[in-house]
């Protein structure tokens, strides 16, 4: 008997959740235009940071796919014997983190310099060639920044190597820009999330005001705070969920409308690059964030305004 009663209570607790969820959704749908406005406001506020993050993701992909992976230039000792240079080349070719290696002899370098600098005659007047033998090293694709640094250090320690030059400033710059972009997106996202919380909070406040009598009566006949709160929390949840879904649609439409232009731009660079979407986890995250923020807004409004209604 006691166990049955307990089960009944649990069942009816679930029933009230179901009822609150359904009833609050029905109430939202009974004023479609008003609800749609709220949903749109939330959707725009969520779609903006989502678009920012998606753009950043795309930039990251572009950075990763860059064909000219950072090249390392090794200036060798001018007095290095050809055999030693040959041995170094063989050793380096065996390394897994080295994709390609090109040897530029001092003579080749001088010829190239003469041609490109236009100082041919001036240079030919030199007694001896001031240019060192050079190795142009391309690291393996997808090498991490840390591994790249390590490779550079190891190379610099070789006696035969005078100087190691990294051609990766642009990568660092890109990464710096991306990090900055992510920070900005986070701040914008946080501000807009706060905006959503306030919008939903205000909407819930009005809903509470509209149902003041009902709240009073429920409290009079012994309704607990949780019981009174429940329908409003569900209202916030529905606002957030609807806003999140609408935001997802907005981002997808935006990406779709851009994808053609991006593809033709990429093909002009002989790239098969195409715009990356939100993906499943990104979409889920967007909708969940909306739902959570909606619920939070409702929670804050309920906490602030429900306590003020006492019979």
């Amino acid at each position, binding site marked *: 008997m006691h166990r049955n009663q307990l089960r009944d209570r649990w*069942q009816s607790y679930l029933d009230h959740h179901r009822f609150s969820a359904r009833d609050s959704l029905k109430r939202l749908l009974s004023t479609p235009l008003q609800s749609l406005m709220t949903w749109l406001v939330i959707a725009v506020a969520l779609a903006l940071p989502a678009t920012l993050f998606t753009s950043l993701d795309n930039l990251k992909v572009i950075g990763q796919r860059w064909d000219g992976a950072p090249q390392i230039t090794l200036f060798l000792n001018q007095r290095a014997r050809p055999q030693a240079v040959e041995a170094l080349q063989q050793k380096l070719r065996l390394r897994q983190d080295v994709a390609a290696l090109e040897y530029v002899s001092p003579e080749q370098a001088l010829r190239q310099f003469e041609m490109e600098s236009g100082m041919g005659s001036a240079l030919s007047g030199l007694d001896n060639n001031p240019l060192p033998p050079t190795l142009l090293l391309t690291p393996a694709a997808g090498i991490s920044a840390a591994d790249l640094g390590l490779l550079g250090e190891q190379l610099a320690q070789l006696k035969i190597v005078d100087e190691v030059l990294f051609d990766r400033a642009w990568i660092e710059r890109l990464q710096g820009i991306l990090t900055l972009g992510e920070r900005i997106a986070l701040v914008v996202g946080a501000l807009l999330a706060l905006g959503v919380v306030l919008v939903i909070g205000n909407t819930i406040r009005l809903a509470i005001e509209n149902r003041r009598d009902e709240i009073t*009566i429920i*409290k009079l006949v012994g309704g607990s*705070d949780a019981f009174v709160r429940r329908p409003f929390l569900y209202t916030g949840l529905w606002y957030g969920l609807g806003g999140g879904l609408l935001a997802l649609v907005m981002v997808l439409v935006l990406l779709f409308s851009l994808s053609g232009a991006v593809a033709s731009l990429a093909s002009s660079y002989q790239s098969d690059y195409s715009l990356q979407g939100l993906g499943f986890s990104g979409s889920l995250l967007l909708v969940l964030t909306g739902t959570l923020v909606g619920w939070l807004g409702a929670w804050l409004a309920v906490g602030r305004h429900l306590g003020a209604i006492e019979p």
Partner: protein
Amino acid sequence: MRYAGGYEALSRVSFEVGAGEMVFLTGHSGAGKSTLLKLIMLMERATQGQVLVNGQNLNRLPASQIPLLRRRIGVVFQNHQLLFDRSVYDNVALPLVIEGYHPREAARRVRAALDKVGLLTKEKQNPIVLSGGEQQRVGIARAVVNKPRLLLADEPTGNLDPALSSEIMTLFRQFNDVGVSVMIASHDIDLIRRLKRRVLGLSKGELVHDGELQGAANTENA
């Protein structure tokens, strides 16, 4: 129940109502009748003195326990306090939904309560289409649906004609007959006289009378 000392609206009010007793609370408006009922419901807290319900000191009752207290007390309001966005049935079922009754058990109790007040045929209607007397009876059904041992009523016959008032009082007497303690705030002296029950008279926040009213009319038809 005992009251001692009181709220600014009530002072030096001290009395006790035994289990199964039926008492009336009289006095002019502003005498403190409603305040007294509110103290029992914890709609107000006593600033001085104590209120005990079923041996429990309400002064020490934490806010989280207030809903549980109210579930054990049935209350009938002068202005009915019904919800017009739902049916008579749903209005009466509200305390049971709050307490978490199984729908089947709740349905049984709601129908029993509605039957008791003679509104079984109107369960699907919206209370807004009912007459004042019928609305009051819906309120009474809601107050008794979870079988409270204490029933409070604040001017339950305030807006009703004498015949309807008398009907409502008969209902309260019937609940009292089955052991429910009943406390009714009313200024309908004629009706109270006829019922010959203990009367607590309040005036300007003080208890000025405790006992049956003298010179009662000896008819108790209802």
